[in-house]
């Protein structure tokens, strides 16, 4: 019992963390699936989402639950604008992955330093969704706001799934992910699909920031660690696979939480790297991935 209880507690923490990683990772994997690029500014979309929530709640006095959809809407528009202005040449000129990596890195750097210059480098704490209290599950107690925020994340994930599985634009996204040329031949507007994908992914990252920053702290570089973890998650789950992103997130969340109790807490953020090495060694295409040959 002495060891078992913290392990169970940490398993639950791992599951909760996993649901946040999933919000980020699903967006990343959608972008990768549809546009074949990795968005290195994803962490900064998270950070922006956190700041928008913070200012909506503290300056305008809007309730967190009302502010969350506003954050997602704003980030949706922002993501579409980024695609239209900066990522479009990837499709129109067929540029290689160096372009997409460097331009999204530039966007990331710009947003971090924009936040430092205009929001200030100090830590901010957005007010929680509900007052902190502990929920007792038998002998284990977990904090109620974490549980609520994880539930909200799960709801957003289910809604996202419905958009992709049941709507016309979701169908176009899946078609584009499978075969871009084929989708174009069938009359799908690949530009519009890319723009929508970027908007959706950016809204998800923003939601993740708006949720998680009430638990963790908010600062201009707050997005870096969640972003690195979601890169590991999509490599683990298989790039472009939505199921992989969700399962990978949960696995990473659990590995980290167990590593914290069983090995060392100081290296909490480093376990993801070990996971990445193992994935690269054992199954480079990821859990749900298929080996893709690029021509």
């Amino acid at each position, binding site marked *: 019992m002495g060891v078992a209880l913290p392990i169970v507690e940490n398993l639950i923490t791992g599951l909760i963390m996993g649901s946040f990683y999933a919000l980020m990772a699903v967006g990343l994997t959608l972008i990768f699936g549809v546009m074949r*690029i*990795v968005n*290195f500014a994803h962490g900064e979309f998270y950070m922006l989402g956190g700041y928008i929530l913070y200012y909506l709640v503290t300056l305008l006095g809007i309730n967190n639950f009302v502010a969350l959809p506003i954050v997602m809407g704003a980030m949706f528009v922002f993501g579409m604008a980024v695609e239209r202005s*900066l990522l479009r*040449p990837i499709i129109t000129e067929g540029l*290689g*992955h*160096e*372009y997409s*990596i*460097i*331009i999204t*890195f*530039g*966007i990331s*750097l*710009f947003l*971090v*330093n*924009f936040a*430092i*210059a205009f929001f200030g*480098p100090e830590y901010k704490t957005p007010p929680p969704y509900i007052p902190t209290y502990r929920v007792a599950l038998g002998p284990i107690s977990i904090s109620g706001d974490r549980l609520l925020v994880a539930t909200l994340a799960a709801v957003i994930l289910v809604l996202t799934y419905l958009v992709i599985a049941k709507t016309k634009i979701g169908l176009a996204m899946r078609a584009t992910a499978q075969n871009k040329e084929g989708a174009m031949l069938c009359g799908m507007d690949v530009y519009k699909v890319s723009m929508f994908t970027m908007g959706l992914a950016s809204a998800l990252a923003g939601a993740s920031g708006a949720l998680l920053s009430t638990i963790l702290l908010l600062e201009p*570089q707050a997005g*870096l*660690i969640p972003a*690195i973890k979601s*890169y*590991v998650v999509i*490599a683990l789950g298989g*790039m472009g696979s939505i199921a992989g992103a969700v399962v990978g997130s949960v696995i990473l969340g659990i590995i980290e939480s167990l590593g914290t109790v069983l090995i060392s807490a*100081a*290296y909490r*953020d*480093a376990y*993801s*790297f070990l996971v*990445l*090495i193992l994935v*690269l*060694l054992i199954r*480079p295409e990821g859990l749900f991935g298929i080996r*893709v*040959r*690029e*021509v």
Partner: protein
Amino acid sequence: MFRQPLSPKGFLTLLAIVALLSLPFIIRHEYWIYVLTIGFYYAILASTWNVMAGYLGRVSFAHAAFAAIGAYASALSVLHLKVHPVLGMAIGTVTGAVFSFFIGYLSLRLRGVYFTLSTLAFAEIFRIIVTVEYEYTRGSLGLETEHLIVTMSYIPYYYVALALLLGTVFSTYLILNSAFGLKIMAVGNSEEAAEAIGIDSAKVKVVTFLYVSALTSLAGAFYGHFIGLVSPEVGAFDQLALIIAMTVVGGMGTLPGPVIGALLLEFFSEYLREFGIFRLLIFAGLIIVTVRFFRRGLYGTLKERLISVGGSP
């Protein structure tokens, strides 16, 4: 690309070298000698990053981390093994090469973006280790280390840095113009096509990454013994951002581009020191605008313009 008649190009190169060699006699101000020395350090890092991103087509996010690996390996061996900084720098170089071999071997077999992700994760774990293991590294306070040369002036360092830079640029020039250089560019253009004509692309990528990382670690080790302090800052994200901005603005995929970009942005950076926090914001803007609208950078764009004015292709 390098097959044009040597005369104007060779002449300009020679002129630039003579100018750099004689600068300490012209600029009598120690401060600017210091700025130039730091500029040379960045020029080495930008030139080597450019070999990966501009020629091999692989973007490394661990470039600053490799400079830090070289710096720490050298500083720690000088501290504990009591070796001379020169030997320390050699140890730093070898350490960087060993690390790069493992990372390259693991991730370069896969598609391009896996390599970038691996380097990002590696850079981050390196930063965490250095910060957490403060008994050995003194954490974010930084590790004090011996100076390479006992001198009151920056001029000896200036020449060491210049020698390292010229060595880097010329060895890169020789490699890119060799058969191996053609393989690098073939893999950079299309890995599938390169494989199809019998190039062992995995080997080309691993060897190139090893070469690049060894030189980067050497530069980092030099930087540590120049400043006299090695801190996690050497491998920080900001440093990586600077290196990328310098390469992209100067001209990615060209040999002089990164050097020009590094010296230009280092001066700009000193000039902007009073603007502090806006410095990186401006550099990020430069990266975005250059990559989006002037993909060949300053050098590439100028060269294109000059050629089109001259009328010869």
